[in-house]
């Protein structure tokens, strides 16, 4: 395979574009797609102070690197989830990335600051682990961005993430969620501006970007996420993508172009009538917010060890 731009040896094929790229032109392609998303959706102004939600995985490290390359002023924010060795290793990847580039990484450790970890706390609060994790991270990301005076909060959601969420919301006709599934959510009372500059890249491309850039990211999947619905939606969409390259792009961007606006009124209704949480002041429909209720129910439980096999290797032979 030859690079579509320079005809040199290609290192990656991107079937939805019917194109192959060498290393340099793949980097150029990634920068071009991120720039296009930022410009098209007015995500970030050159003078903005940017906070990137960083997990130590490929997507968040790739977007942090790309934003710095594109000249933005971006700090990182890491949330320690207390998921045993997985969290320790993920933090070490985020911290090493920041240190190697002289960047600022802010950190909040949930067990230390709030008295629970995701495995034990989610069980105590009778929530699915991914639900408790997502709720905790969203609350802490918002708080960190607002308290730190950042203009915009960046997350590493990529095309696969957005297509999978859209797939799930459509399967179950969660119309209030469909109305706010946008690459940009503007700032409003109690919420920072949130943007997703990776929506034009797949996670295969963000992983390739990290590999080719020498960014050491956490490859292992979160032990709490194994078998969840979001992953099964991604698998289903990739099965379609193999037979019909470009299907994920056309599904998601077709939705944004042609369908999203029809669900906006319901999303607007959902956003109205929020009031400050009685405990922390974050916006909530009434009384105490979901995060404070989670802290109240999950805090103080004795942590349980999480089985994580980050290093074990098994061997078998196939002809």
């Amino acid at each position, binding site marked *: 395979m030859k690079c579509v731009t320079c005809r040199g040896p290609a290192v990656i094929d991107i079937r939805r574009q019917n194109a192959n790229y060498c290393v340099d032109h793949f980097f150029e392609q990634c920068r071009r797609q991120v720039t296009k998303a930022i410009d098209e959706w007015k995500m970030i102004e050159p003078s903005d102070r940017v906070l990137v939600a960083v997990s130590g995985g490929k997507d968040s490290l790739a977007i942090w690197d790309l934003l710095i390359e594109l000249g933005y002023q971006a700090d990182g924010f890491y949330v320690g989830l207390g998921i045993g060795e997985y969290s320790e290793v993920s933090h070490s990847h985020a911290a090493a990335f920041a240190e190697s580039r002289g960047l600022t990484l802010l950190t909040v450790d949930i067990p230390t600051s709030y008295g629970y970890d995701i495995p034990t706390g989610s069980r105590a609060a009778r929530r699915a682990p991914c639900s408790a994790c997502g709720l905790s991270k969203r609350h802490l990301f918002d708080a960190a961005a607002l308290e730190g005076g950042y203009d915009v909060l960046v997350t590493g959601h990529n095309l696969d*993430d957005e297509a999978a969420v859209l797939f799930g919301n459509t399967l179950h006709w969660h119309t209030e969620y469909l109305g706010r599934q946008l690459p940009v959510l503007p700032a409003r009372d109690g919420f920072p501006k949130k943007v997703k500059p990776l929506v034009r890249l797949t996670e295969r491309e963000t*992983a390739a970007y990290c590999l080719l850039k020498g960014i050491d990211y956490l490859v292992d999947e979160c032990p709490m996420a194994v078998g969840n619905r979001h992953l099964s939606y991604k698998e289903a969409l990739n099965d379609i993508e193999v037979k019909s390259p470009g299907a994920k792009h056309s599904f998601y961007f077709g939705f944004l172009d042609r369908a999203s606006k029809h669900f906006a009124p319901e999303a607007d209704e959902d956003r109205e009538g929020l009031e400050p949480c009685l405990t922390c002041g974050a916006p909530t429909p009434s009384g105490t917010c979901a995060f404070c209720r989670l802290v109240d129910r999950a805090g103080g439980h004795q942590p349980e060890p999480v089985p994580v096999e980050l290093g074990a290797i098994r061997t078998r032979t196939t002809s």
Partner: protein
Amino acid sequence: MKVILRNPRRELDISGPRTVINLLASLDLNREAHLVMRDGELIPGDAALDDTDVIEVRPVISGGDR
């Protein structure tokens, strides 16, 4: 060739020659959900693999409630 897989980590011995695309198909792995490396270097779908290669197949799918 030695093929290293992740999540969970394991090693397979697979006969060559074959291409990257053929290797993934023989392992029943989706091309859109994996990258393939030889000696730590990313290689494209038409790259030819032989018995002496050490190959890593890296999954790229991740995520919980995002």
